[in-house]
Structure formats: C-alpha cells, structure tokens
C-alpha cells in the first residue's frame, strides 16, 4: 500500500497506561508505556505538575520516612518521621507551616515508621518497624516501646496512660457532715492533661462516722508533670472487709477533686453511698503503659491499636472517649491467629474492618465490651498493608461509602466487599511486579478535588490514577510518576494540597 493510499488513524482519546499482557495487545487509545504524565480534562494529557520545596526554614527536615496530615484544633498541620541513617534513630517532628517546625517530639532507635491517629487536637503515635518471618517481611510495634501522646503544642511526646500515685495518705473524720457510716476504702486517681485516669492507688481503709465528713492528708503528688488533677474514689460501706484493698468496687466521689498536682490535702468531703454512681473499678485493669503497635485507628470514639511486638493478632480497644484507657481484659479483640500480623483497621458504615495482608474481617460494636464484639470474616484472600487504605482529603480514610485499598490483586474499591475487576486492572502486570516484602512502603491518598489517586510504590516512585472519567477499571487513567530522589510518603493537607516526603534511600 502506498503512502498515498494510507488512511490516517486519528487518536481522539488517551486513556492512560496499559500494562497487561503482551505489549502488542495494548488498545490503540492507551499507552504501552509512559512516565510523568498527568491527564487533563477528558482526553488530553501533559507533563505532571512540578514539585516545590515545602519548608522555608534554615534547616529543613531531611530523610523523610512518613508524613501524616495532623489536624489540630486550630490548623491543618503535618506530623513527620525522619530517620538518621548514621545513628539508626527515627525522630518525629510537627510541621505547623512552612516556617514553623517543632521537634523532635520523639526519638527512638529503630523507628522506621509509625502509626498515627489524631484525637481532640492531640496526636497518638505508635512506633513500629519491619520484622522478618521466614521469607516474608511484616510490620509490628517496636519491642519495649509504647503508645505516645503529643499535645500539639511543641512539647515532647510522652508515654500514653501512666501509673497512679505512689505512697500513702492519712484519712480522718473532718468537720460536721455526712457519710454512710462504716468501713470504706478510699483512694485517689490521678488524671493527666489528656484526660487519662490512672488506676486507683494509695488505697486506704477507714471507718467513717455518720455525722462527719472525711478529710485526707499527706496525699502524694505525682512525679508526672502531665498530671493536672487527682480524684477521690471510694467504696460503698463494706459489711465485711477481708483485707484485700483492691478487691472491691470503687466509685468516683462527686465533687471530690484536687484540681492541681501540688496540694496534699482534701478536707471535709461528705457523700452518701447513693451518690457513688460512676464506677472506677475498671481503671484497675487498665494498661499503665500501652505497648506500641503497627496500626492505629478510631472506631466509635475508641482508639484501636493492633499488632504489638508480642501479639501480632491482638487489637487493644480503649474506652469510648478515653483513648488511653484500655482494659487489659475486656478491651482486647483477638483476630484468629494465622501467623500474619494485623496490618490495618478502618471504620466504615459503623463497622470496624480489620485487615491482614491477605485477609479481611470485621467487628461490630454491640454496646458491650470490645472482647464481646462479634466477628464476621469478609474475605479470606484479600487484605492490605499498613498504609494500604487511601486517606481521603485531610480528615479520614473512607469516602462516603467505600474505601480504596491496596491488595496483592491491585487497587480495589471496597464497599463491604472487594469490587472486581479491581481499579488497576489495566496495569495488572505493573502491580504484580512489585516486591510484596516491600508492600509496607505503599501509601495511598485519594484527592477527590483533583479526582486523582496517588500511590507510593515499593520502588520509592509514585503511581497516579486519574478518575475524572469515572472510578471503574475502564475509565481509570494511570501513569507512573518519577522524581530525582526516592519518594517515601504522601499526604494530603488543606483539602487538596499534595505533600510528598523524600528519603535518601
């Protein structure tokens, strides 16, 4: 056929990368290869946007391992993990804006990653790292490390929870008042600035008189500078006392509070047993130090922490509204053991979904203790990795009615079940070439304003998926994005600002 007879083949649409099967089978409206392409409107494309430096300070942070969006009560900020390859220490910083950075808030040897959840302006931080089991690499909480809490104000992070007061106090009848006469046990609960109530301590037995109030002296102060209050707890009248001070039910005594950590007395407290309504006994079973885990999330206003160094299939669930109060008996959920650690947890439609690398299960709050929540297995073949659920905007992880999840199969929509074909069906070969032992590096964000998904790959480069034409496997338009340096982490801030973190490795 001569050139004169050749009829042109107009390409009117460019539907992105196709990496599936033989290159000769690439549809004409797709690319057999591409790099650093962004999709514009419905059918055009151009070079991806450039990146700019985000910090305008003399010493910007370097060797960025992880970035999360950290909404405080007054601003949208970032919390950032850097790593020093010379010392082996990971350090966490709070980047308030381009000109202000606090930290390091926390420096821990071997911390190559961390789990994070914001709560009431505070940041809960759990250091974790890789571990090798046979030929597989997983993540779990660092051994002998703990959950930390940061106040958002530039002060160093401290261990969440805490132990109670130590020492002894004196108890005596006070001025004229009232109590139910008889033997009570009194104690004090210390409360930290983050609202955590320590277990009742300095338990002291005392027989009250009917016409007298009760006064307390020599009350110990706490060595923890974060303690801001001490609350009186008491038993009701004990008909018999066997000598076991902690073997009875304690209640908070109304209006019996020391609003500081300096006074050593609390005088003239009157109460009736009928006033003792708020139970404090459960505090006795709380963790005083919460072990570090590889996953943190919030569910029904409870903090959920999973994959500790010693229990990779255990979820620690706090009391609602008290993220540091985790009961060591009733606050535990065991996901069936299969040798794989829990990798992720996420609430959607009032259900807590729990993920392992190739398993998805769910738990539902039945208004009872977490240990009683019923489990329903969702999928026994698909799961995800520690950062494998897309963060949406800068507020959470689920978009209206579905999650975007990185599985070994690809990037999938999850709406209670995994939708097939997966969104990344067109680039299945690219996805399946990724090193599964480095899936811990994958991180996803979903930017609905741009209608784009940004995925950090184990290769320290990015994959961008544009869904302006629709979020289904046919309409997705993919392109790898590369940079001169390795990109480790991605976050979204202020609705649609895409933040990237670059590491030397």
């Amino acid at each position, binding site marked *: 056929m001569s050139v004169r007879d050749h009829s042109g083949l107009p390409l009117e649409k460019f539907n992105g990368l196709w990496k599936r099967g033989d290159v000769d089978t690439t549809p004409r409206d797709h690319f*057999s*290869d*591409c*790099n650093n392409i962004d999709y514009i409107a419905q059918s055009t494309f151009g070079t991806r*946007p*450039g990146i700019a430096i985000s910090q305008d300070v003399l010493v910007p942070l370097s060797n*960025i391992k992880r970035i999360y969006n950290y909404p405080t009560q007054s601003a949208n900020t970032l919390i950032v993990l850097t790593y020093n390859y010379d010392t082996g220490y990971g350090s966490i910083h709070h980047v308030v804006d381009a000109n202000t950075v606090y930290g390091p808030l926390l420096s821990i040897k071997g911390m190559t990653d961390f789990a994070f959840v914001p709560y009431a302006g505070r940041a809960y931080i759990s250091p974790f790292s890789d571990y090798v089991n046979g030929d597989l690499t997983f993540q779990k909480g660092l051994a002998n490390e703990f959950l930390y809490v940061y106040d958002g104000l530039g002060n160093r992070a401290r261990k969440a929870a805490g132990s109670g007061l130590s020492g002894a106090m004196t108890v005596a009848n006070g001025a004229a008042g009232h109590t139910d006469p008889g033997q009570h046990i009194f104690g004090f609960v210390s409360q930290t600035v983050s609202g955590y109530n320590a277990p009742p301590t300095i338990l002291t037995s005392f027989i009250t008189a009917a016409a007298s109030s009760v006064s307390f002296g020599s009350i110990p102060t706490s060595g923890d500078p974060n303690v801001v209050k001490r609350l009186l707890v008491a038993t009701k009248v004990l008909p018999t006392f066997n000598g076991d001070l902690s073997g009875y039910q304690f209640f908070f005594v109304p209006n019996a509070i020391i609003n500081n950590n300096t006074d050593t007395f609390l005088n003239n407290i009157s109460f009736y047993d009928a006033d003792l309504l708020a139970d404090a006994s459960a505090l006795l079973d709380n963790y005083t130090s919460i072990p570090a885990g590889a996953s943190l999330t919030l569910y029904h206003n409870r903090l959920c922490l999973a994959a500790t160094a010693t229990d990779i299939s255990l979820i620690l669930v706090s009391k609602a509204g008290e993220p540091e109060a985790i009961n060591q008996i009733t606050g535990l959920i065991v996901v069936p053991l299969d040798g794989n650690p829990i990798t992720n947890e996420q609430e959607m439609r009032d259900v807590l979904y729990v993920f392992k690398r190739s398993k998805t299960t769910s738990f539902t709050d039945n208004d009872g203790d977490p240990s009683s929540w019923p489990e329903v297995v969702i999928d026994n073949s698909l799961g995800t990795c520690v950062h494998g659920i897309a963060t949406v905007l800068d507020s959470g992880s689920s978009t209206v009615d579905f999650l975007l999840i990185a599985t070994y199969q690809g990037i999938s929509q999850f709406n209670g079940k995994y939708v097939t074909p997966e969104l990344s069906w067109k680039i299945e070969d690219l996805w399946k070439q990724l090193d599964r032992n480095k899936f811990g590096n994958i991180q996803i964000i979903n930017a609905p304003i741009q209608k784009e998904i940004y995925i950090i790959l184990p290769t320290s480069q990015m994959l961008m998926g544009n869904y302006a034409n629709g979020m289904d496997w046919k309409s997705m338009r993919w392109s790898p994005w590369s940079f001169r340096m390795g990109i480790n982490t991605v976050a979204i801030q202020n609705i649609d600002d895409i933040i990237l973190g670059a590491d030397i490795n």
Partner: protein
Amino acid sequence: MPASGIFRARFSILSTTGDAFSTLGVGDDARHYYVDATKTGSINLHLFGNCYYLDGSITPISFAGLPVGFTPSGNLILSSPQSVIGGGFFNVLQVPADATGHLTLTYGIYGPKTITVTGFLLANDVVLIGANDLIALLTIQCAITHVALFGNEALVFDSIDISGNYVITKQEFAIENPTVPIRAGDKVKITSVNGLLTGVEQIQVNGVIVDSSYIIIQQPFSLWFYLPPEFVTFSGLITVTLVGDGVQFSGSVVAGVLQILSEDATGIYELVKGQTNDVLYTRDGYATDLSLLMLPSMLEDEPYEDDFFSLLAYPYRILADDDYQDDITNFNLIATQRFVIVPLSVEIPSPFIKTAFLP
C-alpha cells in the same frame, strides 16, 4: 602526538609448560631455555607491562598508556632483530634430526592461529594479519619435542618483537562536557562520529545497567540518558560504558568518565499545579552559626548529652569545650554547623508516552 607513526612491542615470558626447562643466560638480554633429551615442553610469551616503544623511542610504555585512539595499522611483523643465530627468532643450538616443534600464535577473538615451524629455524619474519584490534591479547607459544637420546637442545630467543604502523583515530563515542560535574537525574549526552549510537543495546554506569526508561534520545549521532537515582549518594568518578547490539558494533566501549556530585534532595515537597519544573532542596557546603538557646529547667538538674542535644534540630558542635558536662554553667551560646540549603530547579524527569501498536 603525531596522527600516525611506527611502534614496536617486546614480548616477555608468561609461563612454561610441559617438562621442565632449564634456563641459561647467554649474551645481552638473551634467553636460553634448555630441555633435556626425550622431553617435551613449551614456552608462552605475551605483551606485558611497559613493552611498547613509539616512533623509535627507547622508553617503553604500557598498553594502557598508549595515546587515546592508538590503532595499529596494516599488518604486524613478528621478528627478532637481535637474534643470536641466523636472523630468525627461534633457534636450536644443537639441532637433532628427529626433533619436531611448532609455533602457535594466539590473537583476536577467533584465535588461535597456528604456524608450524620446521627445523626450529625461522629465518623470516612472520606476518600477522588482522591482529590489530586485539594486540594486547597477543600471545605466542613455542613448543619443542625431542625424542633422540643425544645431547640437550636449547630453545633460544632474544628480544622477540612485534612491530608495525599505527594511527591515532578519533574516538567513536564521546561524552559532551565531560569536565562539568553532574548529579543523579542530570542528563548525560553522548555523541558519535560515525553514527553508531542506535547500535547501543545497553548503557552501564560503573557497571550499573541504566534502565531503558532513563534513556531520553537514542539516535545515530546522539544518545541522551538520565543518570539514574542509584547515584544520588555517590560522589566521585563514574565510567560510562556502551554495550553494542552485535550489529552496528560488538562488545563494550568506554564512552568516557564523568565527575558525580552526591545529592541530598530529601525533604518535604508539595505538588504545584501548573509548575513545569521540579524545585529541589540541595545541601551544598556548610555554614557555622552562633545560636542562643533557651534551655528549659533541665539546667537545674544534671544535664545529659541526649537530653540536651535532642533539642537541636540540626547538626551541632560545641567549639568551646568538649568536656561540657563537667563544668557546665552556661549553655546559652553554642556554635552549630549546618548545611546550606539552595533550591535547585531541575527538569521533570523524562515525561514520555509510547503509543500502542498502530498499523
């Protein structure tokens, strides 16, 4: 350096094999090797060390020291200009009637080529055809077999040379601006005199294979590629080697040497819609600052190094006193060393598409 000239290269002993030879030095620089009757042995010679003489010079140089573009031209002559006997280069002092021997020349990628010598007397020079390209690999093996019972025989050689003409040819491939240091992610541009660059099948940088996605342009006379990110932390010299596809050229060819600067572009970035380049942090050089530190109440207690320095977000160094813990009274003034940050604008790496197969 002239564009052409003559050269001479002298062989030296590589090894002996077979039955033991005994050596006996005779005359100026002569080598006499004796082998006993009824024995068989051989001697291997090669070009080694400072053995090349250019344009009549008496100062030898090594093969690696030959001028860039050195190329033997035409046939080479194997000879022994100072032979002890007869003008040939191999001789036998006592010539037995029953002795046999041969001479083997090994050179080129298709060698060995064998020349059989009868009577152990080579009166004429040996012409080597087509040995030019791999002259450095040229070796000679001379073997002797003696079956008679009388007398020892000696294999004598003295100053075995190879000689010929040479020309200086311009290098086929060259790196543009080889004296300008580059960083990982910068373009490396290679040009070709004869337009063979489409025959490059693989690029290696210090042995690391450059992924094909980093190759920007591959045309007959120019080949551009991005220095891959494996060299982000590398500082020093790199050698760029081109591997041929066996059609336009074979084997590997060194295109040149480049100076690399390490690049620490790590940090926090943001995507900027509409921006057509990447602006990176670069950390070049140091500055020393004097800083006033607002220390917390820890000074009232005994300070520890970790507590104190963990407050600092930058590299630190105390200039005044290494034993600061012993007599610490005032930590307010401290000298700190930090990298100087210079924003660097670079191209967005290799944006490209490849369409599907279009009939």
